């Protein structure tokens, strides 16, 4: 990423603000189109004009009912969890200085999922409100564990080490979850659908219950982004620049927990969004974390909504869950990232 910015800075010094403006326009346009499509497509397709009409005027027609009670809550949820996963990804990438980091890959989602399975199996949690606290605890423990692995040495851990730690953690947690679901058919039934990463089944009330937690997480992340810029230079240099490194890291873990845990409780975990979005966004913003956070918060919802719409279109009359679509899109992106020549020196 630094190669991109230094290269362009040499050729055209004034291009970065222009590129940022262009990026903002593109991202907002994509988000608007995706949101409109999300309101229009589905088992009962509506024309865009009709959607536009009932959005302005909520009448008693069937279209208005579909749009206002089913599709708009779903779109709102997509925007919220998209922003949460996108910013959580950008935050983890900045904190670990690891371009391959993502809440799903590093095991944070698996931690939340494991805790929810425990909650369903042993404490009869049945609602998102019940899932939420389990998801927070699981996400927090997984984040702290991954972070401890990453910071056990003197320098920062290599990207592969962190990814592998996440994979190992995911394997262990999923193994125990599998055992818990296989011994009890009720748990199996409840969790197998939940774990896929869907924004279709969540109720509006549940979304509103979790929304404050996500909002706090987003605010913390935005507030930290300046400090993360200096942390990118290394802990010692950041401290000499006046950044409180430990406080930043603790707050960062809190923010990741709120964002990834809350969004996982709502959806079951949407993978690779937090991986892909910051990389795309960086092309517009350059390496400044303040811009990356804001742009990720806008671009990730567009990706989630687009993937969700795609999932509704390709499997008509059924649906493919958004988490599956993002995994199928995201895995090739990850492969492309490690195939790049520069990635070997990450």
């Amino acid at each position: 990423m630094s190669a991109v910015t230094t290269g362009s800075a040499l050729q055209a010094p004034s291009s970065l603000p222009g590129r940022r403006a262009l990026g903002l326009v593109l991202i907002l346009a994509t988000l608007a189109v995706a949101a409109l499509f999300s309101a229009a497509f589905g088992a009962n397709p509506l024309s865009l004009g009709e959607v536009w009409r009932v959005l302005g005027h909520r009448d008693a027609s069937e279209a208005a009912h579909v749009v206002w009670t089913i599709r708009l809550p779903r779109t709102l949820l997509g925007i919220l969890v998209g922003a949460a996963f996108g910013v959580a990804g950008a935050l983890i990438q900045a904190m670990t200085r690891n371009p391959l980091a993502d809440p799903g890959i590093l095991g944070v989602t698996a931690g939340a999922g494991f805790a929810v399975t425990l909650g369903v199996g042993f404490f009869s949690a049945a609602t998102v409100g019940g899932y939420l606290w389990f998801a927070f605890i699981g996400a927090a423990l997984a984040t702290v564990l991954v972070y401890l692995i990453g910071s056990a040495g003197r320098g920062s851990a290599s990207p592969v080490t962190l990814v592998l730690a996440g994979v190992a953690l995911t394997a262990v947690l999923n193994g125990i979850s599998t055992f818990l679901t296989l011994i009890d058919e009720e748990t199996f039934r409840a969790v197998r659908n939940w774990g896929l990463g869907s924004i279709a089944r969540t109720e509006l009330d549940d979304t509103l219950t979790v929304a404050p937690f996500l909002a706090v997480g987003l605010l913390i992340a935005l507030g930290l982004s300046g400090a993360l810029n200096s942390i990118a230079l290394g802990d010692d240099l950041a401290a000499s620049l006046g950044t409180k490194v430990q406080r930043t890291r603790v707050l960062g873990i809190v923010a990741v927990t709120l964002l990834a845990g809350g969004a996982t409780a709502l959806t079951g975990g949407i993978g690779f969004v937090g991986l892909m979005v910051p990389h795309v966004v960086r092309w517009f913003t350059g390496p400044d974390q303040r811009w990356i956070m804001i742009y990720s918060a806008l671009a990730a919802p567009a990706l989630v909504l687009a993937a969700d719409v795609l999932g509704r279109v390709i499997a008509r009359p059924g649906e493919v869950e958004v988490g599956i679509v993002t995994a199928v899109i995201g895995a090739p992106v990850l492969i492309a990232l490690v195939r790049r020549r520069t990635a070997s020196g990450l």
Partner: protein
Amino acid sequence: MSVDFGYRTAPLRLPWFSARLNVRLLVVSGVLFTLATGLALVSLPLGDFPLTLQEVLAALTGGGKRFHRTIVLEWRLPISLAALVFGALLGIGGAIFQSLTRNPLGSPDVIGFDAGAYTAVVITILVLGPGAWSVSTAALVGGIATAFVVYLLAYRGGVQGFRLIIVGIAVSWMLGSVNAYLITRAKIEDAMTVGFWNAGTITRVAWPTMVPALAVAAVIVLAAVLLAPALRRLELGDDSAVTLGTRPGPARLGLIVAGVATVAVVTAAAGPIAFVALAAPQLARRLTRSPGVSLLASAGMGAVLLTGSHLLSLLIAQAYRPVPVGLITVCLGGCYLIGLLIRETRGRYGALT
């Protein structure tokens, strides 16, 4: 030929035979195999119908009650034998892959073999219905095809361990979500059948599936013994291997086939048994204090790990519920891997990747 591979050896000279023996390696391997056999024996009395060790020994030697002989010889012996043999095979396979990729993490479960096998099995069970032979074939084909694709995707003027691992993780992740999608669309019985298969269990093993597996295992072990010197020379680099009289291309191909075969046999018979192939060679290397992984000690360590996990699963079954042995190896192996990573970031051992 006398090449110093960095192993401490003691010369053995007999009138008709002379060799240089790595005493520590031989002793450690002997201890490991003895321990594994002991664990397999101890697991025989355990089960829904508890027997005493005397009754088991009597049944094994052809005496005892007829019913006891049925239980021990027909039901439990193939399972304990499977734990022993499959563990050894996984150890050999892991050692081959780790040596070829020169990476402690280059094990078949990391590079996508398990995920591919699982996808093929899910599709087979959901489309054709459960059947032992179709499931085994699907596991083989899916696993090998996925490993091949991962290798190709990671290839860019040579395969770096780093790239191979991340590509393997990405492909596994993608296949995993496709599997999850297929499972939610399936009937709950089919879905749970698939779930049990993926947990990896050796309790389904019986003589009709064990006999062909043993035959293949014998061939694999023979191939591994023949190819072991080539493996050691390839560790020195291709050029050195050529000067020592090994052709790298054919030798490497043979080793890959043998390595894939070990995992394929186990996966086909028992489902994915994760992390034994990953952990066994490294644990064995630390015990033997050898510079590279050793096939013999890895096989012994793999056998110990799987028989130990099997025994543990039987003990848990007595106290609580039956646990598939694959879940135990996942938990133990995953924790081992996390510990390995923490040690690596502390910088005590050389970089993993």
